[in-house]
């Protein structure tokens, strides 16, 4: 019950954040240089009357705040507007592109967690030994190298030099093998992984590096805890201490970091999609900016903003669920 109320509370708290996101994007999009109508007409000479008619058709003649309220009314009904430039509903464009982006971001996180946690634990248990120093250097490189640069280097090595992996596009496992001309599902799965590998690593390295360092620090701290000493003194085997007693405590901050890093992950996804030619929301976003398709820009911003807020709420709630000390804001 406490947890349900806590969840509801967090969702309510998120509403002002979402309103803020939409207001700011709306203003920025409308202040951006370039007139969308003229841009859409692509330099054709038309008279003022045609422009005025188009403006009226899209409601562009009305004051900003009125347009915002209308827009938000539509958003609440699941209508993110119409891309003037592409002449398609924004929701349809987003639906088409969401799959690849989710696949990329989730796989990058999976990669980051699967590598960072064991590596962090190893570094913690071999503190100040060579393994630890190597991991520190790897983490430093990972944190300070932008994902697109890692992407380019990976392409140069594994796609161009060695020719082992494809450098462009993704294969979607939710499509049928026939669409790609594959022999069957095993090949579809194989190709999915082959295509995903490099972009996943490019995007996941930063997360891996951050999480690994956090995991190491947390494990070191946890292993020095009095409760670990007590467990040892009562004859608990060392591997149980590592896997259960110290580990459980150490994971709490990791969950928070995952939630907070969602913004860097989504930002990184834009560039990674660009480098690997993946038709996700990130690429769509860049295209929308280039063409000043401001309905689309706003739609994407709102969706990404919502994803981020939802992500943070989910991490918050799972933290509260896992850590018994969080008292859902009631008392302590």
């Amino acid at each position, binding site marked *: 019950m406490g947890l349900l109320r806590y969840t509801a509370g967090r969702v309510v708290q998120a509403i002002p954040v979402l309103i803020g996101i939409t207001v700011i994007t709306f203003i920025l999009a409308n202040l951006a240089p370039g007139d969308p109508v003229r841009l859409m007409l692509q330099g054709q000479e038309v008279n003022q009357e045609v422009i005025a008619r188009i403006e009226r058709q899209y409601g562009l003649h009305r004051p900003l705040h009125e347009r915002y309220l209308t827009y938000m009314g539509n958003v609440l009904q699941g209508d993110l507007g119409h891309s003037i430039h592409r002449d398609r509903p924004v929701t349809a464009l987003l639906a088409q592109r969401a799959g690849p982006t989710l696949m990329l971001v989730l796989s990058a996180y999976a990669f980051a967690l699967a590598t960072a946690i064991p590596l962090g634990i190893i570094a913690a248990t071999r503190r100040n030994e060579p393994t630890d120093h190597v991991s520190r250097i790897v983490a430093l490189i990972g944190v300070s190298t932008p994902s697109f640069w890692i992407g380019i280097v990976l392409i140069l090595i594994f796609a161009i030099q060695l020719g082992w992996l494809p450098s462009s596009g993704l294969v979607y496992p939710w499509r049928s093998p026939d669409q790609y001309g594959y022999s069957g599902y095993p090949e579809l799965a194989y190709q999915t992984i082959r295509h995903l590998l490099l972009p996943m690593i490019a995007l996941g390295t930063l997360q891996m590096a951050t999480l690994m360092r956090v995991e190491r620090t947390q494990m070191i701290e946890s292993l020095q805890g009095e409760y670990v000493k*007590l467990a040892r003194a*009562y*004859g*608990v085997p060392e591997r149980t201490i590592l896997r259960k007693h110290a580990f459980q405590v150490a994971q709490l901050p990791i969950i928070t970091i995952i939630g907070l890093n969602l913004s860097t992950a989504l930002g990184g996804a834009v560039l990674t999609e660009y480098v690997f030619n993946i038709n996700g929301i990130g690429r769509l976003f860049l295209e929308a900016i280039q063409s000043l398709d401001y309905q689309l820009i706003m739609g994407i911003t709102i969706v990404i903003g919502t994803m981020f807020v939802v992500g943070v709420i989910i991490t918050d709630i799972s933290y509260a669920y*896992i850590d018994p*000390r969080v008292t859902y804001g009631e008392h302590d």
Partner: protein
Amino acid sequence: MSSRSDPLLRVENLKTQFFTDAGTVRAVDGISFEVYEGEIVGLVGESGAGKSVASMSLLRLVDSPGQIVDGEITYKGETIFGLEEGPDGDLREREDMLTNEEVRTRIRGNEIAVIFQDPMESLNPVFTVGSQLREFIELNRDLSSDEARREAVDMLREVGIPDPAERYEEYPHQFSGGMRQRVLIAMALACEPNLIIADEPTTALDVTVEGQIIDLVDDLQAKYGTSFIWVTHDMGVVAEICDRVNVMYLGEIVEQAPVDELFYDTKHPYTEALLNSMPRPDRTVAELDPIRGVMPEAINPPAGCRFHPRCPDAREACKRIHPENREVARADGQPHRAACIKHDVFGDEYEESVPLEGRAQETAASATDGGESEESGVESRSQSGNGSGSTRKTDGRRGGDDRE
């Protein structure tokens, strides 16, 4: 208790050192003591004396970069630690010394259990109190999970936790400090060990709760007959609970005696200083006499007697001679040992050497009671010739002292 069988635990010349960048920390430097069945043995001393390191050494759980480097620990005839000379003259671990695995499964928890100082930190925050109790019980006794659970609830009740079945399901943060310490006591007792090491179990608690916990342990100790090593820096607690006492200073045991004997016939100046610094009902705060200075680092302990830079009775010889912990008296058939050259029967170094100048003056300046300066105190002592060196003046506590 005068004639005794073999002790439960015998520690001989135990040395534990930490090899740090700054040098070798001689945290425990050759201590010897015994614990007999059913008794509470105190380990007293200031912070940093080596009490915790000594305690953890008994379980062979010394934190890195620490290591037991010498000595022998025997528990119920089993060798927890022991060295012997190898063929090439090197010290090596003895054949009969328990392996790491044996110490973990046979000694830790089920034979020797611990209670730590900080009840707030000693329990794992993410597991329920009950599950932690049950885990340790299952590990150390031949009980099924269900039986261990029942035992855990019974133990919680035994240590005075109300509604034990409900509390079993709760997390440590839902318990107060005193209640958590009760949980830790339940944990120790539930594993049915023969010896419990309580490392300052009441230091983190307020005085009222401290009293309750001590009473609880006293009762449970009488009921279960478990032996205790009670680590503390508080002489008041020692007086209340211990049967015999070991006073530690800078890695060494400087005095060892049954508790009454220690209080009424104090033989070592350090013990005396500890007693003088202890708040008591018959003394005002102004009369308290804190021990001068701080205990030096265990990296480079002072030469000679380690207490000499702070000892009010120190003489020139104390800087040279490292006093051995010798038997200086017997009480109820038990030895009273002290490591102070005042008690050396052979050799008159102490008697013949001069008092350490600065020391004596400082002492005179800070003497608050008796009106007699320390110099004259030293004088009369050396003339008395019995070497007992009782400098206690008029504090009334030593009414039973028959030597003056």
